[in-house]
């Protein structure tokens, strides 16, 4: 595992996601289910608030409007890889247009639990064209820090199947017909996603965090990376040291146990 603290942007990556042209900072965490990224971003979020920054947390698949649509489709299992992909981008776009982008413009530190890279990994693992999905998200900007929590497949799968009573149909990639056994399907699907993530480390210059290390050690590393990004950063004042709640979505405390 490399230790690159500063993400190296390659030219192609800049073509996909444009540079941050706002006053704010964008920090995202990525990784397969069970990589521990949600725990880390939660700790980071609280730390930033305590330090007096204006910070906003946005979670994958959390736009209220899109949620009603995705809920129906998930229940009736009527997603195809393409509609799954477009609707998740719709959710992202709603959050982007109504909260993430305007808040970045205002000078807020926006933290995202999963970002476009989740779609690039998951949707491509489902079989959509890699360039097509990259184009779809090209209205978004390249984060100032894209932290990729890397864990071996067995570790992540162990964490999920141990902690959760039952896996969900799409979460386990059952729509791909990889296996009739939901636990087996989950493992195979996560393996495919992991492959896509590994390819993106170079493509986008993701910063690798070793997700097998103790939580405290990981957090120390995360904070040291973010500190560097925040050198000389003023941002929007936060006089009451309070979280930002934007009515459009349920802002506030990140939920433990990852996103859906």
């Amino acid at each position: 595992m490399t230790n690159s603290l500063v993400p190296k942007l390659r030219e192609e990556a800049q073509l996909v996601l444009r540079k941050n042209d706002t006053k704010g900072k964008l920090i995202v965490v990525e990784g397969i289910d069970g990589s521990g990224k949600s725990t880390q971003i939660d700790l980071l979020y609280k730390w930033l608030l305590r330090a007096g920054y204006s910070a906003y947390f946005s979670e994958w698949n959390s736009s209220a409007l899109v949620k009603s649509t995705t809920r129906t489709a998930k229940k009736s299992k009527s997603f195809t890889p393409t509609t799954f992909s477009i609707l998740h981008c719709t959710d992202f776009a709603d959050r982007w247009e109504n909260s993430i982008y305007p808040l970045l413009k205002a000078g807020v530190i926006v933290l995202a639990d999963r970002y476009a890279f989740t779609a690039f990994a998951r949707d491509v693992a489902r079989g959509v064209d890699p360039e097509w999905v990259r184009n779809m998200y090209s209205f978004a900007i390249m984060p100032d820090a894209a932290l990729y929590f890397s864990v071996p497949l067995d570790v992540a799968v162990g964490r999920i199947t141990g902690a959760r009573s039952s896996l969900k149909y799409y979460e386990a990639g059952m729509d791909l017909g990889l296996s009739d056994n939901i636990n087996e399907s989950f493992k195979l699907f996560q393996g495919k996603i992991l492959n896509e993530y590994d390819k993106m480390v170079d493509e986008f210059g993701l910063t690798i965090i070793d997700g097998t290390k103790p939580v405290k050690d990981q957090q120390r590393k995360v904070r040291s990376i973010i500190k560097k990004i925040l050198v000389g950063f003023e941002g929007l004042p936060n006089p009451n040291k309070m979280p930002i709640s934007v009515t459009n979505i349920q802002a506030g405390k990140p939920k433990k146990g990852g996103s859906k």
Partner: protein
Amino acid sequence: MNKATFYGAGFPYRDFGNLPGKLIVLEGTDGVGRSTQVKMLRNWLEEEGYAVSDTGLTRSELTAAGLEAAKSGHTLGPITMSLFYAADFADRLENQIIPALQAGFVVLSDRYFYSVVARDSIRGISSTWSKQLYGIALKPDLILYMKASIPSLVTRLIHGRGLNYWESGMDLHLADNLYDSFVQYQGLILEQFDIMAKEYNFMTIDADPTEDKIFEELKKPILELLHNRLTKGNKPK
């Protein structure tokens, strides 16, 4: 149409095999009389012995509720709205249009993605982005573009269903009343259609005359297509 041909990436995870049916698209601005013509064409084709399936924008069950909520609340940003339309389109394409073509149906599509690209470009969405997004779209066998002048659109709408908020593009704040906004908005849409007419090789049908005359003009290329007599210049690009 035999082997499925897409504008771009299509659906790489699926092989649709042969599509013996025909995909016929009717495009044109609001109030041009597309829906009436689709009904008339459907009856005529069925009488001629063809199995017909018709489809149109926002008819997917997957996104219908979400799009309706979005339109009544007016809170969606342009990219979000655009993607909702794309989800509707993809769902109908994979689950309705292509299966019908596989079964040999004539599919009449009341608008296709061209309309969406037109309305989105006016709202500041990059047309390069839209066109790549619609790389999933199947190339139709025939694109009939019903083109009417703005005065005749206004006449039809005012004597028909009336001018409405969305068809007048009131969200763009082009003018302070429905009429002026409609005239400006549809003018912008027509400009976009004219660009795409060349790019995708639409067959333009004059939609100023009476319903019956337009119907006769639409029947001609459809007959040519169904009898494999369509000239190359009339085939969609």
